[in-house]
């Protein structure tokens, strides 16, 4: 029986809203798939397109960016900068052969643990449906949790 494909997803979360929202999902004991690896940044506006490109280059199957809702940015306007950057980066990645559906931007506030759970669950499902990525420059190496541990 074929083992179901487990995508690897990198999540960049702003410290003030979305990271806290992810914490809230935890404190509320909600449940979502284990595929996401969260990297904390002070503001979604801190996210350099380079980080996203790097994640895809390394073999990420999906990249999720989450920040404060428009108007709620802790730094007043960081999420607006990110939104513009995202709008440019997404088609560019698509052009490089990285399916648009693998790159998502969501607004999650500090109190929206439920929303975070829904976003991660649906995004994981979406990426799982698209299937494994063919890495730029060669087929993607499959790694199982056991192999990861063996490193």
């Amino acid at each position, binding site marked *: 029986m074929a083992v179901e494909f487990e995508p*690897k997803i*990198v999540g960049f979360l702003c*410290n*003030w*809203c979305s*990271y*806290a929202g*992810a*914490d809230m*999902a*935890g*404190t509320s*004991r*909600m*449940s*979502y*798939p*284990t595929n996401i*690896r*969260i*990297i*904390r*940044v*002070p*503001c979604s*506006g*801190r*996210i*350099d397109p*380079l*980080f996203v490109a*790097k*994640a895809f280059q*390394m*073999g*990420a199957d999906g990249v999720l960016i989450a920040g404060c809702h428009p*108007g*709620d*940015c*802790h*730094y*007043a*306007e*960081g999420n607006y*900068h990110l939104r513009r*950057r995202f709008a440019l980066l997404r088609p560019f990645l698509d052009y490089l052969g990285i399916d648009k559906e693998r790159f998502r931007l969501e607004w999650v*506030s*500090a*109190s*929206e643990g439920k929303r975070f*759970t829904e976003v991660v669950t649906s995004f994981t499902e979406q990426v799982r449906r698209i299937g494994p990525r063919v890495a730029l420059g060669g087929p993607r190496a499959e790694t199982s*949790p056991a192999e*990861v*541990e063996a*490193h």
Partner: protein
Amino acid sequence: MFVCHCGTNIAGVVDIARVVEAAKRMPQVVYVSDNKYTCSDPGQGSIKNAIGEHKLDRVVVSACSPRMHEKTFRKAVAQAGLNPYMLEIANIREHDSWVHAFDKEGATAKAIELVRLAVAKVSRDAQLHARQIGLTKRALVIGGGIAGIQAALDIANSGHEVVVVEREATIGGRMAQVDKTFPTLDCSACILSPKMVELSSHPRVTLLTYAEVVSVKGFLGNFEVEIRQKARKVDHASCTGCGTCWQKCPEKVKSDFDLGLGERTAIYIPFPQAVPPKPVIDLESCRYMKYLAFTASGAEGKKPPQCRICEKLCPTGSIDWEQKDKILTEKFGAIVVATGFKTFDHSAYGEYGAGAYPDVITGLQLERMMSASGPTGGEVRRPSDGAHPKTVVFVSCVGSRDEAKGRAYCSKVCCMYIAKHAIMLKEHDPEVQSFVFYIDIRAGGKGYEEFVRRAQEEYGAIYLRGRVSKIYQEGRKLKVLGEDSLIGRPVEIDADLVVLATGIEPSTGVVDLAQRLSISYDTDRFLVEAHPKLRPVETQTDGVFLAGVCIGPKDIPETVAQGSAAAAKVAALFSQEYITTDPMTATVDLMKCTGCMLCAQVCPFKAIGSQTMRDGKVLANVNESLCKGCGLCAAACRGKAIDLRGFTNQQLLAEVTSLWQ
């Protein structure tokens, strides 16, 4: 590297032994141990010991969210002689064990990767040094209700200056609208008014009523706030509050303070005990203002009367038609937000008449009627015909505990004020029979349960467990259809008056204010505290504190306690001579900077200026006191010349890369 079990919170899901084994094999990791509770005294002690014993120069703690204990562990490593910023936290609780309880294998694998990620970051941590800067020992309190009054008085009494900004023409807030308080039936005005007067006469308090916060800049210890003083058209310096103007003003409008039950004049004080006891002119209803607007518009037809009676009668000549809105800019070291609440608008309930039946009123309206200084002089009368009601039906949870109306939460005070109303109605008129439809009776609090029992047993209020399905007018009566779910039978009551216990919701405009202050609010628009249990009056924004119902529904004693709590936080802050700033600021590599100044354009805090080098080149320069560490500049810089300490490009890239090592 320290892996925390957090009792069974983490260890119950994540296989700690495997995480420890995997961590041992990670590059640069020289020491790994696990603790039951790393945040405990022995846990922190083991970190300190290991730093000394193994000559560690950086530390990873794999435990709960950094938003929880980052400060704790920074302090611990600093005590062992390390730079406090040589610490990273792998969040294997909130982001792992707690959300993956049903996938232990996956959670363990994820924990190992999160640990590897933290190792990648910590190995690129640099020593950072917090700087000390001065602070303005002056506090701003937003909202002049009981929470704000208490906070302001306590701060002022601890020796610091306070400015209270209140949107309405008087302080006092919702408590001033209440007639009596449960469960002691103290007269609300009798306990509140002295505090209002104390506040207004306090030498260290400046009261700005009829004013609003426009913008907030700066940070902990050094806020700069713009406040709009709305035009009152009355010079409060010379006005004596004699009352001639509002007794003679011919223009009558519905009183907001009396929730539409009574009238006030266009020049008014909201209620007789208002503080300051000086009037303002309501620009929308004043006849002279309408006259001015009419003439300015150049419209044809009959001109409204010029009126100006108040001006003619004022003995001190205090009416000032030229007065305009004024913007005041003030400096503060701390801000307390106490913006309170409003009651739910029951027009959402079509089945209760959506506000169409005059004799279906809200609890707060009943409160105004019962008040001796209220629109009916303390008599309970039906708004439709002024008759004294004999059969009164209370409906609980109107706009509370009703997900269909978008209000899932309990408003907490309604059960108690219904009991209070039932008791007081009987005291006003022994012939009154109260019926209370309830879902549950929530009476947690000192003397509260006993109070509800009294309403039932001594005052004969009949409690019926169930919801009201429909209210409609039938002749002079209101037909109330409900269900007594305890006996499983429908109930029909012919009522003279129906009182809806409308729930609590945050004040209008609170979201705008939260955005100006960079503080969070939840889906119900209540403001979010830094930690729901342990930091109940702080926010995630240092120097901004909360008090009262703006955080969530609560009764008066709790609100007062929070006012005092917020004041204690402010006083503790002001007891310091300096505050330390976060050293996670932007820094420019002058060798790479080309002086394009894109960073300065994106910086929301105007923290980036330019500097001229000896060779004449103009390059970027970060003002560290203004930089808040958002990193917008670092993401925008084309040459990667500007970077953010604590979240450097190198660190973030290493974190990404670590996931495939």
